[in-house]
């Protein structure tokens, strides 16, 4: 594949459809993703922002468990970020437990690891769907002390 220099001319096209522009975007997006393959797992590192600016990337471990299960784990990164800023995690015990229960696919294990389970559906795994869900959950957990708090009910109860 041709290497595309990042200039507006390459990114933005003049016609209704220009596959080169799309390719250039894909290349720039992939440049920010580092994938290290081990014998039994992948380590995928992507840009990640914590508002205290102490973290600019996060690594998820993707590991097949069996034919029907793949696990995505943050190796404790999200809770470590929260702990560094909030001091201790005990105050979040109830929330984390409810969070895991409500989500269903998340579990917190020893060493503060947060793990998301991706089950196969009709023999297929939605790895990327699980990956971005994990990115969302890591963002939520790492910043659990910073959210604006509200009494409103988001689902089914907006006033």
């Amino acid at each position, binding site marked *: 594949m041709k290497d595309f220099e990042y200039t*507006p001319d390459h*990114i933005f096209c003049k016609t209704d459809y220009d596959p080169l522009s*799309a390719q250039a975007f894909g290349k*720039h*997006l992939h*440049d920010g993703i580092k*994938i290290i393959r081990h014998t*039994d797992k992948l380590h995928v590192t992507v840009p990640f922002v914590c508002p205290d600016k102490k973290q600019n990337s996060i690594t998820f471990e993707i590991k097949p468990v069996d034919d029907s299960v793949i696990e995505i784990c943050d190796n404790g990164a999200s809770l470590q970020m929260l702990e560094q800023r909030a001091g201790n995690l005990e105050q979040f015990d109830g929330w984390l437990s409810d969070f895991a229960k409500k989500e269903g696919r998340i579990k917190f294990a020893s060493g503060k690891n947060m793990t998301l389970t991706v089950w196969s559906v009709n023999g297929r795994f939605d790895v*990327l769907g699980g990956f971005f869900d994990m990115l969302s959950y890591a963002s939520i957990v790492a910043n659990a002390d910073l*959210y604006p708090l509200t009494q409103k009910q988001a689902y089914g109860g907006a006033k």
Partner: protein
Amino acid sequence: MSDKTLLDLCHKSFDSICNTKGNHWGLDISTTIFFDGNGMAFHLQQVEPKTLKIHTDQSFWEWLAYATLDVGCYHEEIKTVARRFGVAWDEQKLELSITFRRNAMTISQAYFRLAQVVGIVGNFRHYIHFKNKP
């Protein structure tokens, strides 16, 4: 299926992390971010010669409207969360956006930063529940 085959599958998935199509005002980006089965799309455009903007599109506000019943109740919450990540919330267009100079942030950093805020706002239920804890 062997572990190796599954690893191949996982690895290969990242080749198609999004689908992008150019048009005369920028790039339409179909992400692999889903809420309740609804796919989210972004749009990238040039706002100045060296400044780009990536923003959510109709798919996001339609889903948010459905999920919250009334997005208007959450403007302040969304704006506050977004601001912490350097992301803007447009109350009129109901879109999250990140505007960045090419020498200050890469496309990848901007894309994932927007994805983080979309992920947080799209999962509002988690921290709203947090508030209800004493």
